């Protein structure tokens, strides 16, 4: 009897002692990212490309809405954005642009905080450094996207104005307030400086299979944009040159055509632009994921008039006077792009244009024309190369080419803000909605800035 009792007591004690070992098994069904490979795969998330600057789409003066298309907008906030409303989202709607950007910032923060101690597994130290560099570069890019959407443009007078929140730690309970525009730019540059040597040593020039992950060309592309936006044009020239040195591919629009001749809604004979994952011009993929067909986005008359409607392939391949349901929209033109997202990330044509603009702004007008011609010969049939006349004209041509090349991406709105911050004159725009109300967008107005949604401000009053 005593033996039995002893056995029992021992067995109970045994059961109680091994608890922590027994329990410290992390279930397989739930994956907890902890190795270099896991972090690599977190960076491989293709949805990082989704939903960038969608708020800017209808605010862009180059986009026009007829009564038909305005009424076809099912989301009230899009109509309000078209009217440059100061609170398009109200208390109930979610601002996906803000949410998604900070969601990925959380992931990049997670990687940055854990990468140094992460288990190497079957990966190399070089991969660790590449991933670390990417995470810093990605974080910088996200803040660049955010600050240009939700704040005034960087300038010496705007530098202390509120930008966006600077979230650098993993803290779900933080109640961050807005950092200044200057602080955000400082952080962007700091992150890019960390990323630069890491990517230079370990990354490819351009990540062809996952173009939403930065290569070296992408990093310099962003540095060029940052420099341009800050008005540091010499740096912009240097960095855009470097970027193009690493990667400068351009599609020749003469080499493809409409899938169904005469019907721009039928798509192209190449599918590279659908979803942009195969878009070889795209060096840092971020989509403006607004459907441009339901309802159709119309070109503003002013933008439509800029195109050479016969020879400019950007026009002939992407414009139509009927919408996808074959409803006539004349005298306006639809931006005819079905299954197509415009690219608000960094593309080679954008870097060509940055390079040209920076060159002309640093007095190298003819250099600007040279680089511009390289781009335009791929866009226009029977192209006759431009000849340098003077810097002022050249700058104007570059500005117009930016509008034509980067249409429906949100860049135009930011450029207008930027030109105003440089002290250049921009137009005052007006719009009318179907009820006949008239709205005006004055240069330098707060209406250029996407307001932080009331819902987020209610959750975190520090953002007011």
């Amino acid at each position, binding site marked *: 009897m005593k033996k039995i009792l002893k056995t029992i007591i021992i067995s109970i004690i045994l059961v109680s002692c091994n608890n922590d070992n*027994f329990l410290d098994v992390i*279930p397989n069904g739930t994956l907890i990212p902890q190795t270099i490979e896991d972090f690599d795969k*977190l960076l491989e998330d293709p949805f990082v490309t989704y939903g960038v600057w969608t708020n800017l789409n209808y605010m862009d003066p180059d986009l026009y809405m007829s009564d038909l298309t305005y*009424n076809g907008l099912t989301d009230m906030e899009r109509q309000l954005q078209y009217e440059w409303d100061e609170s398009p989202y109200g208390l109930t709607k979610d601002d996906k642009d803000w949410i998604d950007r900070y969601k990925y910032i959380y992931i990049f923060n997670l990687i940055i905080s854990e990468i140094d101690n992460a288990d190497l597994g079957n990966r190399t130290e070089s991969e660790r450094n590449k991933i670390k560099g990417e995470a810093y570069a990605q974080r910088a890019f996200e803040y660049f996207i955010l600050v240009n959407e939700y704040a005034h443009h960087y300038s010496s007078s705007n530098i202390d104005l509120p930008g966006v929140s600077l979230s650098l730690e993993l*803290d779900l309970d*933080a109640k*961050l307030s807005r950092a200044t525009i200057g602080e955000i730019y400082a952080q962007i540059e700091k992150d890019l400086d960390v990323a630069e040597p890491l990517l230079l040593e370990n990354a490819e020039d351009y990540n062809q299979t996952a173009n939403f992950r930065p290569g070296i060309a992408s990093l310099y592309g962003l540095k060029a944009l940052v420099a341009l936006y800050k008005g540091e044009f010499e740096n912009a020239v240097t960095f855009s040159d470097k970027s193009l040195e690493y990667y400068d591919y351009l599609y020749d629009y003469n080499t493809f055509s409409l899938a169904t001749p005469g019907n721009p809604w039928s798509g192209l004979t190449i599918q590279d632009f659908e979803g942009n994952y195969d878009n070889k011009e795209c060096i840092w993929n971020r989509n403006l994921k607004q459907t441009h067909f339901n309802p159709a986005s119309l070109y503003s008359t002013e933008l439509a008039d800029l195109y050479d409607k016969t020879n400019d392939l950007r026009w002939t391949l992407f414009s139509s006077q009927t919408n996808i349901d074959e409803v006539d929209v004349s005298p306006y033109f639809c931006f005819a792009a079905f299954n197509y997202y415009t690219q608000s990330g960094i593309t080679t044509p954008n870097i060509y244009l940055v390079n040209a603009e920076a060159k002309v702004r640093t007095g190298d007008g003819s250099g600007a024309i040279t680089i511009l011609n390289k781009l335009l010969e791929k866009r226009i049939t029977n192209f006759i190369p431009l000849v340098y006349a003077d810097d002022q004209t050249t700058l104007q041509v570059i500005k117009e080419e930016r509008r034509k090349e980067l249409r429906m991406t949100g860049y135009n709105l930011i450029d207008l803000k930027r030109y105003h911050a440089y002290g250049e004159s921009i137009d005052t725009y007006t719009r009318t909605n179907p009820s006949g109300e008239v709205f005006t967008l004055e240069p330098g107005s707060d209406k250029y800035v996407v307001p932080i949604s009331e819902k987020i401000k*209610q*959750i975190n009053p520090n953002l007011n």
Partner: protein
Amino acid sequence: MKFKLSMFTFCGQKVKKMKVLHLKYAFAFLMCMIMQSFSTVYSQTKINLEFTDKEISEVFKDIEKQTGLIVVYNSADLDPSKKVSMNIKNANLNVVMRSLLKEEDLTFTIIDDFIAIFSTKSKNQSKAIQTFIEINGVVKDSDGNSLPGASIIEVGTSRGVTTDLNGNFTFKVRSKASILKISYVGFKSQQIVVVNNTNFNIVLEEDEELLREVVVTGYQTLPLQRATGSFAKIDNELLQQRTSNNILDRIEGFSPGVDFVKDLNTGRVDVRVRGISSMISPFTDENATRPLYVVDGFPIEGDLSTINPDDVESVTVLKDASAASIWGAKASNGVIVITTKKAAKNEKLKINFSSIFSITENINYSKMEWMSPSDNLDMILEFEEKNWYNYSYLAQSGNPMSLTDEAFILYNGDAPNGNQWSKAQLEAYWDELRSRDATKDYEKYLLRNAFQQTYNLSVSGGGEKNAFYGSFVFNDNLSSSIGNSNNRFILNLRNTYKYNDNISFTAGLNVSLRKAFDNGVSPANVLLAAPWEILVDDYGQTIPYYNSGTTLLNKWAAAEREELTGISMHNNILEDARNSDITNENLDVRANFALEVKIINGLKFKSSFQFEKGVYNRDEYYSMETSRMRLKAAHFYDISEDKFYLPVGTEYYMTKRNSQSWNIRNTLNWDKRIKKHNINLFAGTEMRKITYDISRDRKYGYNKKQSTSVYINEADFTSGVITNFRGYRLWGNFYEFEDDDIREVSAFVTAGYDFDNKYSFNASYRVDQKNLFGSDPDYRYKPLWSVGGGWNIHNEEFLKPYEWINRLRLRVSYGLTGNASNMFSPYAQASNRNFAGGRNLYEYLALTNPANPHLRWEETRVLNYAIDFSIFKNKLFGSLEIYSRKSNDLLSSRIIDPTNGFSSALVNYASMSNKGFELSLNTSILKKEDLRWDITLNFSYNQNRVTSFDNAISGVANLVASGELAEGKPLENIMSYNYAGLDEFGRPLTYDTEGNAKPYKSEVDVDELLYQGEQIAPYYGGINTKIYYKNFDLAINLHFKFGHKFREYAYGSYFASLGRQLPTYLNNRWQQPGDEATTDIPAIPYNQMLNPHSGEYESKWDVFTTGEYWRMGQNFIHDAAFVRVKDITLGYNIPRAICEKIHIKGLRLTAQVTNPFLWTANKKNLDPELGGRKSAWSNLKTFTFGINATL
């Protein structure tokens, strides 16, 4: 003479059965174990006897039959074969007995259920000599402990003694006919007729009164009168009333505080014990919201359908903390303890066979009140008139289309083959469509009467060392859809072996094999068809359609591809149903083993082990006879290369799931009685591990006979290198695998103390830990506990004078129970995903959950007050319980600043309360020998309120769709628009807060919505009544719920259901100005054109919104109160005489009807348990016939 009284501790019925075999050998002694029962004066019964020269033992049988009493006698006193004759009508029992015994020196006494016959010689003698008979004996409990202070009283006198310290007594009785009553507090009293005995060895059973007087926590069995918690027990008799194959169905409505909530949309049934106490959606984690199911002491991982309901002895629901907190972190939602049958030691072999057949009434679609095909077509013509179709575009697109679209295209001259219809041809076609009725074909070709059969065999018996129970059941169900059926075998074995007085083993094995054929289509599929889409033509040939989304092409566009591939691209649901080959198979094995050792008196050690293994296989074969595979092959045919990318042949999709769990538990139980003090200590540890893995795979060109398939380059398909002719990737993954490993460790202790059977106290304490929870040391090993007290007032001296009070007991308990989900973890979590972007396949990790080191159990604090009573000789008994359950730290999605990375995070923060009461009443209205009428009522009230919740900001549409989650409101509630009818153009209006109608297109504010009340009934209950008349019994079970609301489903978004079956009332839609006076159903808007009535532009947007205000308005919210007669069962027990002739112990026939009556508060007669839709295929009447034989 040595004998054990305990052997005869039967309820009356069992004694009756025993008598048949044993009475002929009438023992030399006579004794009756008499339980407290509803006493009746049988001697008032009128008896009719007419016979000549019949054996007296046969005569006694007649008397037994007529009176329900049992005649016992000593064959030494009376020769059973003695012949007697008699002719008596309408006589009193006393008269009959006296005349039967008049020639003998015999007399009789009626003691409760017995007629005892004695020799009068001794009586006379004793009277004459005036001497007493000396008897002696010992009184013990069933464990062999002597009971000091037990009282022995001679019934009818004031004489009596008490036992000494060793339980012995010596006593003198007046005669052999004297009756002794032996009582001891906490034990059942016994009455014994002395007869010829002088030495008694009396074993008193603990006072369990009726079977329900014991409660089972799953860990322990406690006498009810010492338990302080809230237990609801459903005994075997009730469990046997229904014939469902699922044990849960058999307990519905029988237990207060247990609500069966039917999900309005999915039809799933949630069992809720005292309200919901978690906000985790059952769709996220079913286990986190359902009660814990415990079978014979262990929580089960497998499905409850692995249990044969006929093996279940009882079901106990543990409702409060004192009852349930021993189950710790799983008990928050209540615990349902299922105890299966086992044989007793020294039980004669018993064989039971039952068979059940049931048939369900057929499905009649006319109950749906759908529009006639003609009216439906008129509606389509109205849409056409309002510019809803672009036929030239549709014709060009090549997309599949409906019959009406085809007709319009032909009429418009847009048909690609150049055909054109005249107006007359079109009209003739409309007339043709108007005359067709698809529902008739669906009823004829796809449906049948559901039919179910069950055969159940069980064997049990026991010897001195060994007790055995085994059963086998086979169910075969044909569902109402032709092609769907399932069957089930369950084998259940349980053996207890007693090695010696101190050591015993129990081994159990339950094996279930379930197979389901899933080849038919659901009766609801008719909703997906146009009213004129009949299945077969006049010659019985299936009609080819080119209308479903999966076809991708219409008949004109498909023609070229069909010619090249030789594969027809049509679809027809009947053809698919006839050619489907889908099976599901489940094999579940549950084995357990327990060792019980009595270490010293009162101290027991028990070690138990359970292993469960489940294997699930689903095999789906899609041959080229099915449209699914035909279309896939045709779609992946490349015309330019004349190449099939997907092999032509059978697609095979398999799913395999393996799950296993093991559980080890060691417990020590110490019972000690020191005079009036009863102490019980129980402690143990438990470890548990659950693992499972699921794999899926898909093969093409599969040859079932040879198990071979044709190789395809899966990567090219998943990454989109190979797409179909439309450029779409092949849907459906290839190989997939997932697995999980969950581990738990627990330690627990309970203590019980009882003084003098008057005051009892209970306490429990348990610590659980799980590998998914509490990485923060503050929350690891968080204890869960309970305390409880009970007071048996009826055992107090001051209540003794009130003889009509048989029981009065107060209970109070308080404690903490927990709830856990396997879905959440304190670590940042990601999941593996694939995405084909362009030509690239991204294998990436999506971050799904942020890190939350503070994650912990949800907890519920339960306070329970209860009073149990039994009065008027137990004619009326019941209990009233009042409880308050406060659930804190509920896991809920909290809205957080998205700037921190997540818009919401699942954190322990919300809280909710459930308060309520439960009343159960049992009464026997009538009790006569031939007629008995029992009624049981249970009534529950539960008030559910969210007590703290982050004020989530919800849009109007959200609030109307899913109610408002807010403090002070019930978790599940309904909100609606304040609908104000139509304006002069048939457009919907809503009221603002002032009560003014707001024009269409003005935004509705949150405060203009109407709060309609809760969705879950606060009041619910059941009335169960059973009437026994002679050999017949009739049971009626009725359920009711009230105090809640439901939303009727309305087809408001015209477009979504256009071209399909629509309700008749849409005929009343606004069609012309002035209609707004008589209808509130909005007009069909125009598409992308001016509305000629209003002069305003209308678009697709309007069609989505117009209906919304109407269908989500208050007119579609109804009172959900209902009373349902769930079932009526008529039983007939074949008279014993007949049974004996065919050499069986008992034979019972039953007939049952399920769902015979429903009363609803809503005027439209919609069944509130059916999601507010009319349904011709749910809650149908089912007729069941059963036979049950005991050998």
